């Protein structure tokens, strides 16, 4: 029983150290709490497996995947990447502002990050609707099945991320809370969404 307590304490030590606040240049610090890192690292492994499986099926019929890939609109893909990168930047700056004690600014930056997330979803919805209107659906071929499923599950992560940003907003707005590890955990999750999209973008849109 004591043992269990001990590991629990270890697990939350990151949380405890981050409550103390600013100035961690050069010091070792785990952003957010360990629980969120379990989520992020596990999700990376799961998605890693999806990406590898995608590559295996791509290698089986490279020409079909390549010609299908041509039907994607690269402009929209790039736009969406830029939107998500910008939102990640907003969130990263928001964490820094919160650390410096400027919660009003942190809040503003979080809203901007969330707004970019919403824009990402809208752009994605537009992209999907044009593809479906052009007759490329989930049953067209293996490439489009991967396209809809990978971007679809990623969209699920984006919506979940918006919920988590909402939790961040509540945390920042309430002067009695403002726990740094909560803000950092939310940010870590949001950057993971960005990171996964970078890989999806490279595999589905760009590579030949």
């Amino acid at each position, binding site marked *: 029983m004591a043992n269990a307590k001990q590991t629990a304490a270890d697990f939350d030590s990151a949380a405890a150290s981050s409550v103390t606040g600013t100035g961690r240049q050069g010091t070792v610090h785990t952003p957010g709490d360990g629980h969120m890192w379990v989520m992020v690292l596990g999700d990376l492994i799961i998605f890693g497996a999806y990406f590898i499986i995608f590559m295996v099926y791509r290698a089986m019929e490279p020409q079909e995947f390549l010609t299908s890939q041509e039907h994607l609109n690269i402009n929209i893909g790039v736009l969406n990447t830029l939107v998500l990168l910008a939102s990640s930047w907003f969130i990263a700056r928001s964490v820094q502002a919160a650390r410096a004690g400027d919660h009003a600014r942190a809040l503003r930056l979080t809203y901007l990050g969330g707004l970019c997330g919403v824009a990402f979803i809208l752009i994605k919805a537009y992209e999907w609707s044009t593809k479906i209107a052009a007759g490329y*659906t989930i*049953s067209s071929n293996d490439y489009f099945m991967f396209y809809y499923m990978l971007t679809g599950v990623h969209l699920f992560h984006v919506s979940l991320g918006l919920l988590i940003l909402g939790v961040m907003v509540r945390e920042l707005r*309430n002067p*009695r*809370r403002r726990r740094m590890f909560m803000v950092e955990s939310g940010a870590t999750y949001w950057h993971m969404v960005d990171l996964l999209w970078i890989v999806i973008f490279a595999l589905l849109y760009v590579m030949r």
Partner: protein
Amino acid sequence: MQILAEAEDLPKTANIKTQLISLWTAPVFGVVLLIAFLAFPGFFPPMSPDMTAEQVARFYSDHTAMIRFSMITFNLCGVMLLPFFMVIVIQMKRMATQSHIFAYCYLTAAVSGATLFALADIFYLTAAFRPDRSPELVMLLNDMAWMIFIAPVGAFVAMNLLLGLAVFFDDGPNPVFPRWVGYYAIGTALAMAPAAGAAVFATGPLAWNGVVSFWLRNGAFALFVVVMFVVLRNVLHRQAVEEGVAR
């Protein structure tokens, strides 16, 4: 609802918050389910039991994509309404002048109802999986799907009768639900009950595509969710205020 700062971390506050989350899944997934309903090509008008096997098979091969889209959405999101009904269970358990027996019966009835819906959904999807199988068999799957979807209203009737009874038994000075909810629940039960006729009738308003069995049954159910959402919001707010959790 504004949660009081000093009550933020109390268990009774978490109790309210989890109920609020469950409550709000209803409108969120309600919209999704409405889209799935509108997307199903066989609901406007509902497919007739008179269709021949060939017509049914052709329906599934002509509209495969939309049938799949609609039914997969129902599959993923249909049971997501269950937490909403569990809020009703929790509120029934708060009724002061009765045991919890109605609440637990309501819970099990809700589970039965949801199981039947999940089952019907699988039959639609199996029919659409290989629409090229023998038309007789596609029709068999289609009949099973419609039969399980429309006819077994017993669970919903029982739920609403139980809710009505619970409201009437809750006759203390501070009832959880307003009294009209009891009448409304009984009314919903009565509106859904005739759909059991779909088990027997192949034509007329009681057949599964009939005005009573299809539109009255499903309309009453949808309206019940909408009305109870508003009712439960008020009930939860009152509970939160009474327990000193919110203003």
